[in-house]
């Protein structure tokens, strides 16, 4: 269970990105975060992985206050999360294969497990013939799919996807969304940030809508309400 308790984030000097957010996400839930560009979706996610710190309020994972995690233990917390970044953030000097393998190496998976899983993940995102390409040799959508595979590789408890389909065509978009649903059914908490109306309407899952840093709507089986 993830709990945001009265969380505010002000980027210096005075950009109020999040304003008094109260949000509870249960284990194994599938939650979409909807909102216009600049609403604060990515900020919410950055707080969760401790890339940024809340100006006010606390974030809990179960009983653990994320703000209290010591630097030494931070990697362990981050390994519970699979993160798909809006801007991909692949390692430019590693191939597609190595980028995915890196997430597993970090979490101490064995060589055999890595050699077994990485090709499967590449197949899953339809990139097996691009395994040895560097990010600079991949299209935007291909990079995004590598980023997705990397986020899944170490079997995280929580999958956080920030706009994971922004660069994909319709066919790939729905393939990815179906993948996320399947992963969720296998027991992973999924947090999906998007401003894509069709995705949200097609999902028929919980939708949290943010506007100007505030939660304005939180619906089970939600629909996209912004224009």
């Amino acid at each position: 269970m993830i709990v945001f308790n009265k969380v505010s984030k002000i980027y210096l000097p005075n950009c109020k990105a999040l304003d008094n957010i109260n949000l509870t996400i249960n284990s194994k839930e599938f939650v979409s975060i909807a909102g216009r560009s600049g609403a604060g979706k990515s900020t919410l996610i950055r707080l969760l992985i401790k890339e940024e710190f809340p100006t006010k309020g606390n974030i809990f994972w179960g009983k653990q206050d994320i703000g209290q995690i010591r630097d030494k233990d931070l990697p362990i917390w981050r390994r519970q999360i699979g993160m798909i970044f809006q801007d991909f953030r692949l390692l430019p000097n590693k191939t597609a294969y190595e980028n995915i393998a890196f997430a597993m190496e970090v979490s101490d998976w064995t060589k055999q497990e890595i050699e077994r899983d990485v090709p499967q993940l590449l197949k899953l995102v339809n990139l097996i013939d691009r395994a040895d390409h560097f990010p600079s040799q991949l299209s935007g959508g291909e990079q995004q799919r590598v980023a997705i595979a990397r986020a899944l590789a170490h079997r995280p408890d929580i999958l956080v996807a920030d706009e994971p389909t922004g660069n994909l065509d319709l066919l790939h978009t729905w393939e990815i969304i179906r993948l996320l649903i399947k992963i969720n059914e296998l027991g992973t908490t999924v947090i999906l940030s998007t401003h894509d109306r069709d995705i949200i309407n097609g999902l028929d899952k919980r939708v949290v809508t943010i506007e100007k840093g505030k939660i304005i709507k939180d619906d089970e089986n939600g629909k996209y309400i912004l224009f």
Partner: protein
Amino acid sequence: MFASLIRVTKSGGLSFWRNKWLSVATIIVMSLAIFGITNLLLVNVLIDSLITNLEDKIDISVYFNLDTSEEQILATRDSLIELSQVKSVEYISTGEALKNFKAKHQDNQVLMQSLQELETNPLEAALNIKAQVASQYESIVNFLEKEEYQKVIDKINYQENRTVIARLSSITTTIRQVGFIGLAILAILAILVTFNTIRLTIYSSRKEIKVMKLVGASNWFIRGPFVIEGAIYGIVAVLATLAVLFPLLWYLSPKITTYLPGTDLLYFFQTNFIALLLLQLLVGIVMGTVSSIIAVRRYLDA
């Protein structure tokens, strides 16, 4: 633990290879640094042999009264040799002194004539003493001031040589100090330049470091490959240095020997090769790894 050590090593080696051009630039800088340090070390060897050459030319002579027995002189020699300051003592008997004198002045008819007219040998027996270092003559002379020696010693030519010895000893000390300070300054410069170069290569990876942190890599897992890469820089730089230094010495050493007889840099290099290699490797690897660790730290904390 062992598995991640292998991973880190592989990753460092791979990164070294993929960043070939950046690596080459760093290695050139490091090679220059190691080359400079080694050369100054060799120059210090040259200076040392130059000084030894000079110091070998000075000695003091102790002349004994004509009625001193040979045993007494030899006893004095033995106790002198016991002194740690003394490098060598050469005994010149009265007979030898005469022979030397004749050989030296054989063309001088007047002198030869008058020598012949003397009934006995007028030349005193002597001990020629060389000290380890020029500044030690004073204490050797002090040692000979003891009562038992004063009885048999006629004179010591130290007073006449004193100023020469003093000046030489101060010059040699200064040269040694200058050589050492030069070595130290160059070493510090080389270390700073190397550190800066490595810092630049790591600066170009700062975004990568952040991403690695965000996907949950521990600090050692991130740092490791950079440290390995730094060590590889050091090792390759040492090999590159040797590849230049060896032919250079092979070519220059005979020329230096003609100017400074008794100095053979190539020979010195060959006999001390293992020690030099280890020293260079130590310098190279320590510079490479420590620079990497310090440079990465900035981005790990961020």
